[in-house]
């Protein structure tokens, strides 16, 4: 009794051991996590480097834009300075070449003007102003002789600085003019001022530089009035919309925002000895255009590579998770098989124990009954009573039946161990069917065994083959209605394998189920609580273990046929199963 309890406890322990292993993983979650993490690790560096590249290029292109504008500004600044310097030098040369008397001589002055016009072409008039500020000589289109300039600001500037270049003004014919005045000291300590008006060519000079799209080069004075027309800030003498930059001897650059979209890069420099500021403006958009194009390419390239990376990751992770799922399912399958075989082993041990315990009392019954029979046989007074002998014979027959049952139980228990031995197929089939004899009789099921005698003995695991056949026949019995027919056939295939076909004319398997019947826990009986859904999956596993194949074909209401193909030569890997041992002698050697 205690043995039974022990095994029961063991069984429960086994179930507890396995229950924690039975949890399946959440594959959707794993998929999402894997995709997220992998994408993160793959994409973050790419984006990071793309951003760095973006910023570095942006900075250098911007820098380059500023440099280009500054270069433009300083080039033009040099031209303008040279232009003004040239005119100034011409006047200085005139004062040095001619004496005050010569200059105040209208005829001579007229000739000087003409020579200057011939040499430079843009002088419109020339005048000499004495130290009182009165114009003592004048040559030009206006009659300005005797005009007193002493109160005017430019005259004071000339006195203070020795040179004065006026802002641009519109002279006659509405052309932009500017005046240059220089102070010349005489040997006696007095001085005079030579003043000339130029119809200057700065406009054309600056516009020559504006050959590229969007460039704008112009002059402003220190008060912010345009001296030459500007593309962005208006025409001559308009006030510019931006604040006048502070004095800078060298070229400086700044950004000017005209509107939300238009940003100008403006480089500027003060022209020495004047109140002019040269400004060169270029729209940032245009300067940045090549960079913008490369940025577009970069973004395109980046998005394409990210797309590819993502696609790859999704494919790889899906594949991996699928494999994981398959192996997990396999693991579960093996677990169930293990559990099942554990249970079977326990049942086997139990059966062995019970059979052994029962055999002793059976032996006593047998002997007592035999003794009774002996008494009747040897004593003449009972000999004439055939009824008593019949009763005793019935008892001994029953004992013999009981002992057959216990022997079968023992043989079942013995076959729990894995062992390869030579078996006779017909014998095994008969053994298995002997388990089902009573049921077949009850339900008047006809069992037809057609196993030809020429099937040789072959090496395989007897217990496993028995279990396979038992499961299949059991299944067939479940599908059969009373009075059905079960056929068991065997044939040799290609001289190297044997095929066992078990066909019934029972209810059949629906097409939707037939693909799943070998899956663990797939049961049509499960709904009614009759099956575990493990039988066929275990059968499948066992057939595979024996190196065989199992196929099923079925038609609803016509019947099902299972075909098991087993190799005649067992080639199982004995190393893979440590408990697998070759056992040459069949068990029957001690049965006598």
């Amino acid at each position, binding site marked *: 009794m205690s043995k039974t309890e022990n095994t029961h406890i063991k069984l429960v322990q086994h179930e507890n051991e396995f229950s924690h292993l039975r949890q399946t993983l959440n594959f959707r979650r794993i998929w999402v996590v894997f995709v997220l993490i992998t994408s993160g690790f793959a994409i973050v560096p790419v984006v990071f480097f793309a951003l760095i590249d973006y910023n570095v290029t942006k900075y250098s292109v911007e820098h380059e834009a500023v440099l280009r504008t500054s270069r433009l500004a300083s080039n033009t600044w040099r031209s303008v300075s040279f232009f003004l310097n040239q005119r100034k030098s011409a006047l200085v040369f005139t004062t040095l070449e001619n004496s005050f008397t010569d200059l105040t001589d209208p005829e001579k002055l007229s000739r000087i003007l003409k020579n200057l016009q011939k040499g430079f072409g843009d002088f419109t008039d020339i005048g000499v102003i004495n130290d009182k500020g009165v114009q003592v000589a004048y040559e030009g289109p206006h009659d300005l002789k005797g005009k007193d300039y002493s109160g005017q600001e430019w005259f004071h500037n000339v006195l203070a600085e020795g040179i004065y270049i006026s802002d641009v003004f519109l002279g006659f014919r509405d052309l932009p003019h500017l005046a240059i005045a220089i102070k010349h000291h005489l040997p006696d300590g007095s001085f005079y001022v030579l003043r000339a008006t130029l119809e200057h060519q700065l406009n054309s000079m600056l516009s020559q530089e504006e050959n590229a799209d969007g460039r704008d080069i112009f002059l402003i004075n220190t008060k912010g009035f345009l001296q030459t027309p500007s593309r962005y800030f208006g025409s001559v003498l308009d006030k510019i919309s931006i604040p006048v930059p502070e004095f800078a001897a060298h070229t400086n650059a700044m950004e000017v925002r005209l509107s939300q979209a238009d940003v100008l890069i403006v480089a500027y420099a003060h022209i020495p000895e004047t109140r002019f500021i040269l400004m060169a403006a270029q729209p940032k958009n245009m300067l940045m255009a090549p960079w913008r194009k490369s940025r577009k390419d970069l973004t395109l390239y980046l998005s394409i590579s990210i797309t590819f990376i993502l696609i790859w990751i999704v494919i790889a992770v899906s594949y991996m998770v699928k494999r994981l799922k398959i192996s997990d399912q396999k693991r579960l399958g093996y677990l169930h098989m293990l559990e099942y075989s554990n249970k079977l082993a326990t049942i086997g041990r139990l059966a*062995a124990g019970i*059979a*052994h*315990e*029962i*055999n*002793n009392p*059976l*032996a*006593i*019954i*047998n*002997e*007592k009954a*035999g*003794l009774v029979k*002996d*008494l009747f046989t*040897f004593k003449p007074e009972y000999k004439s009573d055939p009824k008593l002998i019949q009763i005793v014979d019935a008892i001994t027959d029953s*004992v*013999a039946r009981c*002992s057959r049952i216990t*022997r079968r139980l*023992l043989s079942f228990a*013995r076959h729990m161990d894995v062992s390869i031995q030579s078996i006779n197929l017909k014998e095994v089939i008969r053994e298995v069917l002997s388990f089902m004899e009573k049921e077949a009789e009850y339900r008047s099921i006809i069992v037809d065994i057609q196993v030809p005698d020429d099937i040789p003995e072959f090496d395989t695991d007897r217990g496993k083959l028995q279990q396979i056949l038992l499961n299949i026949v059991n299944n067939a019995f479940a599908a059969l209605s009373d009075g059905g027919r079960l056929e068991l056939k065997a044939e040799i295939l290609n001289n190297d394998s044997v095929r066992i076909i078990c066909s019934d004319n029972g209810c059949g398997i629906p097409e939707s189920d037939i693909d799943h019947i070998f899956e663990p826990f797939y049961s049509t009986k499960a709904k009614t609580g009759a099956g575990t859904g493990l039988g066929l999956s275990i059968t499948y596993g066992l057939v595979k273990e024996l190196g065989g194949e199992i196929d099923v074909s079925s038609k609803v209401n016509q019947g099902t046929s299972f075909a098991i193909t087993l190799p005649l030569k067992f080639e199982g890997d004995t190393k893979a199963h440590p408990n697998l041992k070759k*056992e040459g*002698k069949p*068990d029957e*050697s*001690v*049965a006598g």
Partner: protein
Amino acid sequence: MSEKVLLIDDEKDFIEALSERMESRGMKVSSTVSPKEGLEIVDKETFDAIILDLKMPEMNGLEVLKIIKEKNPDLQIILLTGHATVEKGIEAMKLGAMDLLEKPIDIATLTDKIKKAQARKMILVEKKTEEKIRKIITSKSW
């Protein structure tokens, strides 16, 4: 000639019934439920066959078999068991048991085996006697 048999089994009912049946078949049966007592009996008397249960609470049948065989290798021992396995059978045969029968036994089979055992023993005893006589013949000269 009636066969002399010793029965050793822990089941008293079994022994009583079996010995009575064997006696009614003309055998001379001694029996005991204790293997130790059985060993003592074997020391004192000689038997044609010893029927020995494999599984007893006091002592394992195989151990008893070993001891008996050490003392007297000529004794014919038939083992009885409720649980025959290949290993047990092979072990018993190696130790010199004559046969191994599964319970419940068929009285006819058992009788048959006992008769065979007796015959074997007779042969062995005859051989020994022959040897003895030969020894006497060769050693003592008239």
